[in-house]
């Protein structure tokens, strides 16, 4: 990682071991992450790391094409594809009440205040400007020029790291990391997390991950809007006592509406497609695990005990390859080797052909973690077994470190796309 000698935000002098600026609190890891070989996360102060503004995934970013992915060969056959759900210990969904003790007092809402969507100021550079009064930032590339109001160096022209290039967040029961990767100029992925108290006294944990469609206009805004909207919708529904699958369905529709609302006739490039993104969410409520998705972002179940039970993919891509396989027209190997394999057939956006939210619930009978991610990760660990092989054994105890590790795997693999990973321990650890 390049050594920053001064804070990119306020020009405060830094010590080599500084992780945050002592003056303004800027996350220096985020500032320096662009371009550099990935380093394994250190295990100091495992808590990270709401971004400086206290506002996670609420900002802008960019993402790779859903076209053919470069940099990895045809994926090996998916090992779990022929297994029935029962084989890996995921009970079919049940509608019975979660096992949470009814006599417990409702838990306080654990989501950070910053998670609440905030209107306006969606560009991190605006936030920096709004700071006002701080000394000129210096360029992280040349160290010579100061940074202009448009976010470029006044000496070498280099674009400065943006807040969304790398963000991390951890709440009780869930952690997530998003990264620009090594080949894209901005991060078009977004995530949003919540921990909410349920009316029956139990609690729910929410993770939403979205991936902007690069070939459309303003994909970074699309993913941010969708993540924010789905998260907010889930919080409201769950707090109001809605069943998780219904809440999930509703959240996907709400997220789609928020992306539709971004389409506008005054787009600078009228030829561009309307803003669009994928969306995948996971909610844990007591002993129930619910996922919902549109597009090709995924959720996986990775049990603690990798010997007794098989890990599983919980979502089915809305992609050309998945459709071919589903229709029996091609074998999985053939389908995924095709250049069209990664073309998505379902997305959120004004030009979506039809909106078909998918939801599913599971009752895992043993502990493990749910990994919710964009294709920036699963391009490098496609099958559940491959992913399980790189999920740390202590993932359930250290979800943030697990998410960091998985982002590292993708970066080491080439980081061709933006990478976003959320990790939810199951069952949700009880506070205290």
């Amino acid at each position, binding site marked *: 990682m390049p050594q920053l000698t001064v804070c990119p935000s306020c020009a405060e002098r830094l010590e080599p071991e500084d992780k945050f600026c002592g003056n303004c609190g800027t996350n220096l890891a985020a500032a320096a992450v662009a371009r550099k070989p990935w380093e394994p996360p250190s295990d100091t102060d495992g808590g990270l790391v709401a971004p400086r503004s206290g506002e996670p995934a609420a900002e802008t970013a960019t993402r790779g*094409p859903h076209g053919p992915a470069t940099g990895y060969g045809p994926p090996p056959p998916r090992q779990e594809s022929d297994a029935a759900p029962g084989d890996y210990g995921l009970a079919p969904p049940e509608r019975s009440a979660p096992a949470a003790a009814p006599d417990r007092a409702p838990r306080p809402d654990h989501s950070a205040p910053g998670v609440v969507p905030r209107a306006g100021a969606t560009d991190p550079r605006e936030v920096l400007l709004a700071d006002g009064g701080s000394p000129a930032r210096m360029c992280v590339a040349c160290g010579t020029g100061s940074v*202009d109001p*448009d976010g470029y160096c006044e000496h*070498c*022209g280099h*674009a400065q790291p943006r807040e969304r290039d790398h963000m991390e967040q951890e709440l009780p029961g869930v952690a997530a990391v998003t990264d620009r990767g090594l080949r*894209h*100029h901005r991060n078009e992925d977004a995530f949003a997390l919540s921990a909410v108290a349920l009316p029956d006294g139990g609690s729910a944990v929410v993770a939403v991950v979205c991936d902007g469609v690069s070939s459309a206009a303003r994909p970074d805004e699309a993913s941010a809007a969708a993540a924010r909207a789905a998260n907010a919708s889930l919080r409201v529904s769950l707090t109001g006592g809605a069943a998780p699958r219904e809440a999930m369905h509703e959240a996907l529709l709400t997220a789609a509406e928020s992306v539709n609302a971004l389409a506008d006739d005054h787009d600078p490039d009228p030829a561009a497609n309307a803003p669009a993104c994928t969306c995948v969410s996971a909610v844990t409520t007591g002993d129930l695990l619910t996922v919902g998705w549109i597009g090709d972002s995924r959720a996986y179940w990775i049990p603690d005990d990798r010997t007794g039970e098989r890990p599983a993919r919980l979502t089915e891509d809305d992609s050309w390859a998945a459709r071919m396989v589903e229709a029996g027209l091609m074998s999985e190997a053939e389908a995924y080797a095709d250049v069209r394999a990664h073309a998505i057939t379902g997305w959120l956006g004004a030009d979506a052909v039809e909106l078909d939210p998918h939801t599913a619930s599971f009752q895992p009978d043993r502990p493990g973690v749910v990994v919710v991610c964009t294709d920036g990760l699963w391009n490098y660990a496609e099958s559940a077994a491959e992913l399980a092989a790189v999920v740390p054994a202590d993932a359930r105890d250290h979800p943030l470190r697990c998410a960091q590790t998985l982002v590292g795997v993708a970066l080491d693999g080439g980081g061709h796309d933006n990478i976003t990973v959320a990790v939810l321990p199951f069952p949700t650890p009880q506070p205290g």
Partner: protein
Amino acid sequence: MANFSKSHVPQFTAEVYQNEYLPEGAGEVNAIVTVTSTGGGTTGGRPGAGASSAAVVIMVDCSGSMDYPPTKMRNAREATAAAIDTIRDGVAFAVVAGTHKAEEVYPGNGRTAIADPATREQAKQALRKLKPSGGTAIGTWLRLADRLLSSADVAIRHGILLTDGRNEHETPEELRAALDGCAGRFTCDCRGVGTDWEVKEVTGIASALLGSADIVADPSGLEADFRQMMETAMGKEVADVSLRLWTPQGTRIKYVKQVAPTVEELTDRRVEAGPRAGDYPTGSWGDESRDYHVCVEVPAAGVGQEMLAARVSLVLPSADGGAPEVLSQGLVRAVWTDDMAASTKINAQVAHYTGQAELAQVIQQGLEARKAGDLDTATSKLGRAVQLAAESGNEDTAKLLAKVVDVVDVATGTVRLKQKVADADEMTLETRSTKTVRVKK
């Protein structure tokens, strides 16, 4: 009629059209910058604040050749009278007779007159004094116009120059020196009447003084043309606007040119304006829109990198010599990607104006070759011009080309040189070769 919905101070906007995506290893960034100013002129002789801040000098060729045929001098006189009628009340003006020396025709006191019904009438009376005799030394006309214009305390200074012959009574160096002395002090539109003048001389003067050049082959067309030119001049609201280009360390500006409404090379006209910034003169603006092609070489960077390749702004020098006012600005970016679909796309505006610039060039090269007797080169260049004009929808230029060559096949650019070409047609094509059309929507 007064248009109250517009303020007197024009609003400038700068829009950048480019494909910012470059493949790995590439380092050339192309962008078209469309600059539009609104809220200024085109109010058609509106009396108002703008009127008193402009001055215009008309320079009429009175060399001996203006008497052959005698209609030429008569038409020039009538055209000048028509132009004088178009001068708004309050505008400072003067008329200069040009021969091997320059002579004040009106008002004649070494200064300008202020336009009103009486002065306009006096000026028209004074035109009767114009008698063709003597030679041609355009540099002297320009120097006198400069002296007269600078005697008026105004923001907009403009000249209108009419000539019918070659600049035979001074050296090219003397003309060059006069142009260098006048550049940036006033703008000047030039017209060649008849066919005995030198296209490169007249377009060179217009180019140096940031004005238009055209041919008026038939003297009877002068009046309408002069009126039109004066109306355009009266529409100008702000002078001395510069296109400022900031580029980062390690980059090189390959070229900067105006590409609409005409092709005008600006690269060598840069005036340094602070660290890594330079100004290119654009003259005065009314309600109008112009396009500029900026080409910058940047150091190639890795996939995923992004940089600002240039910051383009319109600046106006402040009256008190302080920091110039930035009227508008746009960003030219470079983003390296491994997405071939993104990086191989050529921006429609860039492609169009690259074609228009080539069109102007091949016409000039083709006519040059034709004059030099190199008919093969002339045929191939003019054939390419026919093809480009058709592809881009530049119908005016296509029509002019058709008077010089017989078009066999437009699509392939197959042409035959005409055996006989009227001088007027050839000179019209050469003079107007730099006129471009905008992208078809």
